[in-house]
């Protein structure tokens, strides 16, 4: 009887969970906190809930739902030191599914190949309107300034000695505030850090309503936040009004793809897909069915699998270490510095320009479209209920997506083939 009970106990997950001295409980707690933020607080629920559930199901011993990270030679060793695969790159996908479980099959097919981030970018492009950017082209430059956090944290991380330059670049890209870009860059440069970087990137994106007001409070005065963009437009009317917006919006994605492809070819997989999705949207009824598919079915499917797979990479072995804590802290600095850099650039511009710009437009230079713009609009209307800056913020916000993809392209092209 005792033996039967012992066998039943060994069969359940309890034996391993208790033997692991509470480390699994930390992961469950993390999963529950993320689920709470997604379900109750509505912080990016479409992403946080799949990620959180992925974390939960990946951390039940014996469930085979956690993703194993292979070393550079493709060798996979589990926590007990048992070799699960000698070279995963030589294994077929059905073999991966059979030997390592369903989640590893999905991860190595969809994420490790770099397939899902560009697909998500395609969906993001279909949901993006470049109209506000084209109407306020001058403001788009703040999307470049806000990439400063990426490179500043890259230097800090390298100087700390805890990260090599490839890992530091993957950490810095969190400052781009763009989940797919962060994942894409990390897959290329430091795939073993994918779990903490993805979770930090998406968590900080979800916390945009908290982080932006904090940085704005530290860096902007009330007088600056009261700058009314519409009144400035009346005083200094914009010179480039569009007479045929539809045609411009169709040509724009084609032209931008061509230019970026020529200058930074490594960013084409992101920018190209972003602009392709946008082109299908702008063409209208002729490509309506394709637009509908990529903005709904494909985007939603990709989001579900991306979220689950990223969550499943957060196993006890991969997550509970000092590197992860370094990434969480560094990611926060990257995010904050990006917002502050955008604001500083606006302040510098205001010193030399008669037409004043509300610094909130610089704060939206990081990606996180459109949440960053919505948050900044709320801040400005708090000081002046008539001062709606949403459309102006969207200009730098959308250009920030292009900026972070270009920054990722630079990092990848410089570091991907570097031997350490």
């Amino acid at each position, binding site marked *: 009887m005792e033996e039967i009970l012992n066998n039943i106990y060994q069969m359940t997950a309890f034996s391993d969970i208790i033997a692991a001295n509470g480390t699994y409980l930390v992961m469950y707690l993390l999963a529950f906190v993320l689920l709470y933020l997604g379900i109750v607080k509505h912080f990016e629920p479409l992403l946080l809930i799949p990620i959180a559930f992925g974390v939960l199901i990946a951390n039940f011993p014996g469930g085979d739902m956690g993703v194993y990270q292979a070393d550079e030679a493709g060798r996979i060793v589990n926590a007990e030191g048992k070799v699960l695969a000698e070279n995963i790159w030589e294994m077929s996908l059905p073999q991966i599914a059979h030997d390592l479980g369903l989640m590893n099959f999905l991860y190595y097919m969809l994420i490790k190949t770099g397939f899902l981030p560009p697909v998500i970018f395609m969906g993001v492009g279909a949901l993006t309107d470049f109209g506000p*950017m*084209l109407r306020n*082209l*001058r403001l*788009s*430059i703040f*999307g*470049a300034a806000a*990439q*400063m956090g*990426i*490179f*500043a944290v*890259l*230097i800090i991380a*390298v*100087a700390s*000695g805890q990260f*090599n*330059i490839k890992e*530091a*670049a993957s950490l810095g890209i969190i400052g781009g505030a763009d989940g797919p870009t962060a994942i894409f860059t990390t897959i290329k440069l430091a795939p073993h850090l994918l779990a903490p970087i993805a979770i930090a990137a998406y968590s900080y994106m979800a916390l945009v309503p908290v982080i932006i007001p904090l940085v704005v409070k530290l860096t902007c005065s009330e007088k600056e936040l009261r700058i009314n963009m519409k009144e400035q437009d009346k005083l200094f009317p914009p010179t*480039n*009004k*569009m*007479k*045929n*917006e*539809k*045609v*411009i919006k169709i*040509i*724009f994605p084609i*032209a*931008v793809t061509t*230019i*970026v492809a020529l*200058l*930074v070819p490594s960013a084409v997989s992101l920018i190209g897909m972003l602009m392709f999705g946008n082109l299908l949207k702008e063409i209208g009824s002729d490509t309506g069915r394709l637009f509908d598919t990529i903005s709904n079915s494909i985007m939603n499917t990709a989001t579900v699998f991306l979220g689950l797979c990223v969550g499943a990479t957060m196993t006890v072995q991969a997550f509970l270490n000092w590197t992860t804590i370094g990434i969480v802290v560094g990611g926060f600095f990257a995010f904050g510095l990006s917002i502050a850099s955008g604001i500083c650039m606006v302040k510098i511009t205001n010193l030399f320009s008669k037409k004043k710009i509300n610094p909130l437009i610089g704060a939206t230079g990081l990606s996180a479209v459109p949440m960053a713009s919505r948050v900044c609009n709320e801040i400005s209307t708090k000081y002046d209920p008539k001062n709606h800056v949403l459309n102006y913020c969207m200009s730098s916000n959308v*250009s920030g997506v*292009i*900026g972070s993809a*270009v*920054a990722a392209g*630079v*990092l990848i092209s*410089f*570091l991907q083939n570097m031997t350490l």
Partner: protein
Amino acid sequence: MITNDIYGALQLLVVGMVTVFLVLLIVIYLGKLLIWAVNKWAPEETVAKKVAPAAKAIDTIDANTKAVIDAAISQITGGKGRVAKIEKLKN
């Protein structure tokens, strides 16, 4: 090793920020060029003409209908609300 990495990181800072600024500046001027070219050679779409149908729509609402809408608004808002404008929406 760390010194080399810091040197590499500084190099990336300069190259990365210059590239991002350059690409976005090109995108900005490309956008301006596009707007100028389309405005010059294909300025078909006009925005200002859409006001007339709305004004016409108000004329088509007869006094009885207006009285019913007024009464409904008054009922719902407890006498506090009033109708400022009635527009017929396009189907």
